[in-house]
């Protein structure tokens, strides 16, 4: 199968960061970047599908500045066959602008499946996948937690609050991948060396206009410092009291 995975370069989610002087972005000093977590799961899904279903080709596509190339090569070192780097100095917040650039790249690719992570760990909108699907005129299933393919049809399980839904869909399709479906493999050293020789095409991203614009980025208001109300089971009455009288949630 020809499978494409769209991935996003995001700041390392465990790092502390500061707001840049412009007040609307993150200060890049000392920041490390990684492939967004759910996108890595999507890469793993793509690799496993082609391992299970016979010969195929996997492609990763990303939008971003030069530094994105290193992350595309990480995907190549995991076993992906080729990478496409759509260059852009900045990735817009607006998922539709992003989807437009991705759809332009994907539309003539003849892909059986296009995979996204459920949402990016920076902006967290979770919209680019479904929007790209719409622009490509392809069926879309989001938040896939389990996946099986047979013939030209797929079966996916999704977690909706309080329920698990099973859906069937035809290929070609766009899927967004949830957690738990597969742990991403750690690239082997041979994989890292092989990545250097795999094709990495570079072209400018054809981004749409951004209709959702960041005006300000700020750190969350510090929660007012809390307090320990006591030790051991004897503190329970005091906890009940503050929850009733102070916090008024009981």
């Amino acid at each position, binding site marked *: 199968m020809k499978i494409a995975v769209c991935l996003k370069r995001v700041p390392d*989610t465990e790092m502390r960061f500061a707001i840049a002087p412009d007040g609307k972005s993150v200060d890049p000093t000392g920041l490390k970047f990684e492939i967004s977590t759910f996108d890595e799961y999507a890469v793993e899904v793509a690799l496993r599908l082609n391992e299970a279903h016979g010969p195929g080709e996997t492609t990763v596509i990303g939008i971003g500045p030069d530094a994105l190339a290193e992350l595309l090569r990480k995907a190549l070192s995991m076993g992906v066959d080729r990478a496409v780097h759509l260059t852009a100095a900045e990735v817009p*917040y607006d998922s539709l602008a992003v989807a437009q650039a991705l759809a332009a790249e994907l539309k003539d690719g003849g892909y059986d499946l296009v995979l996204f992570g459920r949402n990016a760990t920076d902006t967290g909108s979770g919209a680019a996948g479904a929007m790209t699907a719409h622009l490509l005129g392809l069926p879309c299933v989001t938040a896939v937690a389990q996946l099986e393919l047979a013939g030209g049809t797929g079966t996916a399980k999704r977690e909706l609050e309080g329920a698990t*839904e099973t859906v069937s869909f035809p290929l070609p399709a766009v899927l967004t991948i949830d957690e738990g479906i597969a742990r991403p493999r750690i690239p082997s050293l041979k994989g890292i060396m092989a990545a250097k020789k795999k094709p990495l095409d570079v072209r400018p991203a054809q981004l749409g206009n951004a209709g959702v614009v960041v005006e300000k980025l700020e750190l969350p208001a510090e929660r007012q410092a809390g307090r*320990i109300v006591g030790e*051991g089971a004897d503190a329970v009455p005091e*906890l009940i009291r503050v929850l009733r009288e102070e916090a008024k949630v009981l």
Partner: protein
Amino acid sequence: MANMFAFAEARGGQLRKVAAETVAAARQAANATGGGQVYALVLGGPGIREAAMILGGYGADVVMVVEHADLGHDRPEVWAATAAARIRDKNCRAAFFSASAEGRDLAPRVAAILGVGLAADVTSFEMAGDVVRVRHPVYTGKAIATLRVEGTPAVVSLRPGAIAAVEESRTCSVESGTPAIDPGTAKVVVTEVGSRGAAKLDLADAPVIVAGGRGLKAKENFALMEDLAAAFGNAAVGATRAVTDDGWRDPADQIGQTGRLVSPQLYIGVGISGAIQHLAGMRTSKVIVAINRDKDAPIFKVADYGIVGDLFEIVPRLTEAVKKVRSEG
């Protein structure tokens, strides 16, 4: 005076709690812009019309009902096409969705059909004059972005629990309609829905969440959490990634960066140290309580109240105390 649209989510023939939140948000937006009409859209199987009537109590002026035999299950393609069509027909200035599991699927489709961007998972919004501004936690809750939504309509999805389902009664009329596309043509078909226990309150809907972590030591000890939740009566039981990875709890119960993001009124974390991964999922809770035997556990830094000690002694006592409070009503 601008019209507002709200997508009112239904499941299993009932409206979900987030439907009320969404309609209330649309009402809030309409009130802020001169008091236009709020159109709420409900799609479902036969009989959904009855259930839809409650939306008048949350500020809907018109409830647009689409009843169809094939709409008993989730139908994002049909919903999206129908919502987009109604938003256009009614000239809505803004369209509100919930950022529930289905809303996260639906809202992007609608925005794409309408050719506009989406402000997703928003925790607050304001409409001042012609400008729509929203706030949204980003970088797994480490920062808050203020976004300006340009274009009409402004499509917004709301984080469940972030906007209160404020009651505002309106005389509400019903418009029955048909889906914008034939449900039979939908490519994605729901073949099965497994519920996880009908009576079980979901993390997104529960005003109280009691969450357990490694400190509970064994899978069976989660019974303590179930008891505490039962004592509250309106609580759901959540878990950390560590315990869901170990198979003690269902992964769908995982609260955290790669799991569920929750905003209950009261969150009680038991035997949870407070890894950044987990805090990202619950730090917007209104009141946070932590119970842990280690007074230096990071969770105490975000908790409003805490008890240091052995949870195996504390939690049963707390359960008793909550039962007593509840029975005294």
